Every structure is written in structure tokens, then in C-alpha cells.
């Protein structure tokens, strides 16, 4: 057994040295064709995302993008949000479905704890946790609703709400009921599906952005991006909170 372990270690170290050598040769290769780290932004797909003219037939006709003007393909100032919620929304929808599958599987596999070691948190923690939860949830709502103007969005804000509920699960023995999370998560998923189907009915393509885009940089702009990000935030928050409620007790 001992000798076998030594052999496994030596073999793994040799394998890792081989992988490191191959990767170093690939990174420092200077022949033509390997432009992974030396490409310009003009050669990539993201150039079209920056100028907001992906679906036009005469591509890249537009000369400039200006804050305060209207009439673009989508009105999000944060381009990562534009990529996630508008251009690649189908991808994001399937990813949220994977999160739903994970939380359903955890609920299926977990049982209630039988032999529990009772340990309540101290009085300082129990006094401080509700105030911290309040501030965390307010910041999370700000992050979710300003996803099209500043960094953040549904995923980060939903995870922040879930971490606030994790604080509650750590500090108190009496837990919140899991029924609300189990009710909210499929409802948000159905809302996303309804948004996609209404886009199919009104504009002719699944998940089309059918609301008016508004002027670039305004608070209420960018069409359906605020609605979709709010739905994604509810879904991520309830899914991760349901997972942590299952694990904690």
C-alpha cells in the first residue's frame, strides 16, 4: 500500500511536468496562427457587441456610440450585461435551468438531521445578524436593479441575498421555511419562459427584446433587461438559499 502511494505520487509529478512543458511551449510560440494572446479587439466578435450592431445586414455601418442617444439595438451601458441578458440570453436561460436541476437534486438527496449537536450562537451574533442582513439585502437590490448601468446584476445580487440568508441559518436554530424558496424558483423560471414566448409572438424570434430600448445611460432604459435580470436574481437567490437551507438542517 505504501509503495503504491509513492508510485502514484511520482507518476503524477511526471505528468504535471509534462503538461507544464507543453503549455509553456504553446504560450511562447511565436509562429503565425497562434494569436490567442496577441489578437486585437477588432478581429474578435466582441467588436460588434461594442458597437451594438450585430444583427444588421450591412454590418458595422455605425460609426460611433454615444451616451444619451437612443435607437441602438439594446440600451445597456454595461456591455457584459448586454452580452449575458440580450445577445446570449438562450445560453443564460439553460444555465439557470442547470441551477434549478442542482437545487432539486440536493432537495431530493438530503434528509433531516437526526443526531444533532446543539450549538446556538452567542448573543452578540444573534443581535448583530438581523441588522447586517438588512443592509446586505438593500445593497443586493441596488446591484440587481442597476445591472445595466454598473457592474453586477442578477447573478451577483442573487448570491448576495443568498449569503444574507446563510447568515440567518448560521445564527439561529429556528430556520425560515423552505416553502417560499421552492415556490419562488419555478415561478421565476416560468416568467423567463413567458418573456421568451412573448418575444417569439411579437417579434418572431425567441427571447427577442420587444420593449423600447430608451436612451443609452438612463435609469429606465434597455427594454426588457431590467425585467429579465430581476427574474434571474429571484431565481438565483431562491435556488442558492434552498440549497443552503437543505445543507444546514
Amino acid at each position, binding site marked *: 500500500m505504501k509503495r503504491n502511494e509513492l508510485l502514484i505520487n511520482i507518476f503524477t509529478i511526471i505528468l504535471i511536468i509534462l503538461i507544464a512543458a507543453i503549455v509553456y511551449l504553446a*504560450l511562447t510560440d511565436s509562429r503565425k496562427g497562434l494569436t490567442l*494572446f496577441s489578437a486585437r479587439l477588432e478581429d474578435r466578435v466582441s467588436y460588434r457587441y461594442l458597437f451594438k450592431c450585430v444583427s444588421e445586414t450591412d454590418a458595422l455601418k455605425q460609426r*460611433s456610440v454615444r451616451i444619451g442617444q437612443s435607437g441602438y439595438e439594446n440600451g445597456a*451601458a454595461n456591455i457584459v450585461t448586454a452580452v449575458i441578458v440580450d445577445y446570449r440570453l438562450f445560453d443564460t436561460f439553460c444555465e439557470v435551468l442547470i441551477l434549478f436541476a*442542482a437545487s432539486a437534486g440536493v432537495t431530493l*438527496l438530503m434528509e433531516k438531521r437526526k443526531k444533532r449537536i446543539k450549538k446556538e450562537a452567542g448573543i452578540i451574533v444573534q443581535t448583530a445578524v438581523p441588522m447586517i442582513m438588512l443592509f446586505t439585502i438593500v445593497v443586493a437590490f441596488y446591484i440587481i436593479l442597476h445591472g445595466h448601468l454598473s457592474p453586477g446584476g442578477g447573478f451577483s445580487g442573487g448570491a448576495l441575498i443568498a449569503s444574507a440568508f446563510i447568515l440567518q441559518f448560521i445564527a439561529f436554530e429556528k430556520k425560515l421555511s423552505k416553502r417560499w424558496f421552492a415556490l419562488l424558483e419555478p415561478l421565476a423560471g416560468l416568467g423567463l419562459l413567458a418573456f421568451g414566448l412573448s418575444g417569439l409572438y411579437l417579434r418572431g424570434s425567441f427571447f427577442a427584446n420587444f420593449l423600447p430600448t430608451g436612451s443609452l*445611460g438612463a435609469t429606465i432604459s434597455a427594454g426588457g433587461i431590467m425585467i429579465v435580470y430581476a427574474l434571474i436574481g429571484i431565481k438565483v437567490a431562491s435556488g442558492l438559499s434552498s440549497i443552503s437551507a437543505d445543507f444546514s438542517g
Partner: protein
Amino acid sequence: METFSFSICAFSLILVGIFGVLTRKDIIRILLALNILETGINMLVAAVGYFKGSSAPILTSNITRDGFLPFVDPLPQALVLASIVIGAGTTAMALAITLKHYRTHKTEGKA
């Protein structure tokens, strides 16, 4: 130069993660090593989109075609943001399967 150092850091994390997955014995340690590997891969994908001297892809002033475009690539960041949330879900699922496995076959106090 910055892109090269970013990718070297990411690859060091990936190699340590592969070593941990291949040599550790208990399942919890293997899952920790798998999470380290995932962090390294996320950093590598984000490092592909980095350009030197450019700013975050948030429009604050007007951009024109002829002038210099001072933005990093937004597409790898979107992929990384999706991948982080998926990683949390799959880790939770793997831990639930670990608990179930431990409850059915008790493996002499080891996990």
C-alpha cells in the same frame, strides 16, 4: 506581459488542482482540489480577454470607430460569470452525493 503573467498564475492553479485530484484519498479534499482547478480555469478564460492599458467594458463616454478602443473583451467575462454560478451548483450536488454515499456505506470513519 501582463497577460502572460495572468496566464502563468492561472496555469499554476490548474496544475496544483490536477495534482490534488489525482493523489488525494478523501472525497472532501478531492472536491476542494476540483474547486481550485475551476478557479484557475476561470482566471485563464478571463485573462484571454485582457488587453494592456484598457478599461472595463462599461460605456461612460462616446466611442468612435477611428479612435482607439479602450475596452477589454466583454465576452470571456460573461462566460466566466455564468461558469462561477454553475460551479457552486455542481459543488453542492457533489457534496450531497458524498453525504448519501457515506450514510449508506460507512467507510470506517473516513469520507
